């Protein structure tokens, strides 16, 4: 059995839990032009962009010998819930043979959830499964903590590239940790690594903080969002995303009695603009905009896959939110044809606008 999965965010996490259970894991290549070309070629024309990218990833994984694909069934009532059905049929039509394991949230179909867990469990004892999950979850929390630090401090590095380099190394260290002891060491070494990075001192009032909100896949997967966090870092902005894998796990996979309240709070904040959960992450998107504003952020970049159903509703209400909360929001819709150069210029212009506004505010108050 050679297992693979969609490529989204810090993939070493999915790899880890499967490895700990003794599976042979195949990490598909990071989405590239080739992935997109394959995905586009074999997807319905108007399928969403994440669907197409994942299609490409599956094909690459199958070509490399994967015989088992694992994925989640998507959040809320949207197309993602149906991704698997179509992916499966297309791959079959292409002649690939594989087992397809789709994890829906526990609440949706408890029996199926358990059945799937059993497939992954194999001959391991339940104790081992629980240990593996707990270990990976801990690691995930730590990784996300470093991920946040990186996105915040990239803007202030003195030596160009030093923060990105540290991030690569941190991920490598975590990738190699398989025991509690190794995890601890990885954490300590990562701490050391980042505290050694020389950073510029920047006055509080000159800091620019940008929140990234939107559909989860394009927010989390750098290779298909033009590495927007890096772009913003280079432009001198601190960045935070609306989605981190650990939040997602908390909200979607845990049975509700264990749920943390953070996500619920965010949803509440979105309520005046999108009253109920309409699918995908639209309500989170508007909730996070309010949250970022309350936490003193200077601007928002809203990422959505082209034609994304729920995010089109967020996009429709955003101009009014932006005016009411006095926070600039820039919506960027991404697809396989996204012109990088053009979008980069637009992002630059947006950041310039925010910086100028900040500057004139100081001068005014000074």
């Amino acid at each position, binding site marked *: 059995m050679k297992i693979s999965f969609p490529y989204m965010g810090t993939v070493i996490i999915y790899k880890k839990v499967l490895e700990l259970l003794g599976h042979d894991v195949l990490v598909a290549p990071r989405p590239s032009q080739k992935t997109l070309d394959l995905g586009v070629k074999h997807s319905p024309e108007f399928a969403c962009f994440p669907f197409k990218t994942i299609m490409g990833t599956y094909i690459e994984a199958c070509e490399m010998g994967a015989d088992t694909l694992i994925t989640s069934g998507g959040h809320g*009532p949207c*197309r993602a*819930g149906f991704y698997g059905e179509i992916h499966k049929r297309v791959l079959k039509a292409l002649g690939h043979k594989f087992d397809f394991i789709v994890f829906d949230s526990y609440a949706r179909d408890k029996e199926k959830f358990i059945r799937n867990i059993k497939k992954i469990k194999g001959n391991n004892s339940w104790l081992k499964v629980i240990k593996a999950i707990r270990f990976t979850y801990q690691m995930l929390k730590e990784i996300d903590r470093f991920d946040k630090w990186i996105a915040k401090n990239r803007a202030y590095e003195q030596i160009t590239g030093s923060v990105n380099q540290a991030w690569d190394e941190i991920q490598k260290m975590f990738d190699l940790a398989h025991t509690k002891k190794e995890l601890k060491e990885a954490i300590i070494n990562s701490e050391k690594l980042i505290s050694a990075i020389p950073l510029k001192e920047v006055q509080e009032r000159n800091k620019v903080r940008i929140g990234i909100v939107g559909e989860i896949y394009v927010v989390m997967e750098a290779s298909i969002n033009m590495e927007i966090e890096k772009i913003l870092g280079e432009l001198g902005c601190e960045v935070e995303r609306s989605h981190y894998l650990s939040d997602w796990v908390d909200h979607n996979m845990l049975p509700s009695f264990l749920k943390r309240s953070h996500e619920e709070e965010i949803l509440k904040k979105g309520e005046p603009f999108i009253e109920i959960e309409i699918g995908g992450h639209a309500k989170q998107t508007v909730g996070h905009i309010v949250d970022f504003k309350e936490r003193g952020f200077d601007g928002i970049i809203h990422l959505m896959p082209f034609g994304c*159903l729920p995010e089109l*509703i967020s996009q*429709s*209400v955003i*101009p*009014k939110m932006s005016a009411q909360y006095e926070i600039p929001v820039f919506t960027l819709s991404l697809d396989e044809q996204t012109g990088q150069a053009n979008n980069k210029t637009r992002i630059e212009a947006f950041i310039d606008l925010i910086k100028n506004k900040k500057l004139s505010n100081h001068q005014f108050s000074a």
Partner: protein
Amino acid sequence: MKIGIPRALLYYYYFPFWKAFFEALDMEVVVSEETNKGILNKGIKESVSEICVPIKLYIGHAIQLLNKEIDYIFVPRMVSIQSGEYFCPKFMGLPDMLRHGVKGLEGKIITCQIKSDSDDISAPENYYPMAEVLGVTKEQIQVAASVAREQWIGFRMFNKSGFTAVEAMKMIQTNDSLEVLLNNQQSSKPVLRIGLIGYVYNIYDPFLNMNIIEKLRELNVDFITFDMLEEAQLQEKIKDMEKTLFWTFSNKLLGAGLRLFHEPTIDGIIHLTAFGCGPDSFMGKLFEFESDQTGVPFMSIRVDEHTGENHLQTRIEAFVDMLKRKKFIA
């Protein structure tokens, strides 16, 4: 009080209910005009560019109602009419989008959440939240909902016996079924019978689809749409699917399509879809698979903001010709 109802989206499925409901509460019901260029353009102008055409049209219709001295525009939040299934996200967010996304509509929208476990949306609880704004009591709402239910069931009965939704509406409103029946008579026996699969708002808005229904009739082609089928017939092919589409109306179309692909009297299937429709992109793919398997010809027609009439005409004619050749020569 004057209540405006946009002639768009589920107008073609629930208008008889809503009209009867508000009228039973002594309100005057005003419907926007038939779709025209002006309505479309207003809708395009006021909505985000990537959104599907039917939503743009809805926005256009809502704006048009503003000139009609209405007190409120009724924009229900359609959440679910089948347990475990929902509406397309754009329906669930429709009141939000109109209220916060379209200039001039804030304060003009009256809404309530529709939740039900079947197509029958008459449970009065759905409408209680509007009682205060409408200045009516819960008891009045109960009565109105049951009057409306009667009307709607009558409408659906005509619809399900093979009349288009537009015809069925006329029949129930004018009580003059005969006239519609006579008009509906085709001059000669139809040569072909096809499945015409699409949402009611795509099939029944003649402006949006260049009057495809008339075109088919002129070509002497009989057709069947999903709303003409019984619920059990729609469920038959999809109830065993491990996963369906989540969205009720998409599932109805899917169920209708899959069924018609296997019905011996059906010569071909046309899927009428609108530019920018997310759910349809997946459904279209499933129909393609089904067509390959069954050998029943399938064509997808996508209408958008500027579909050329000639182009559409040519494609339909070519498809019909092909079906005829297949049927009568082979």
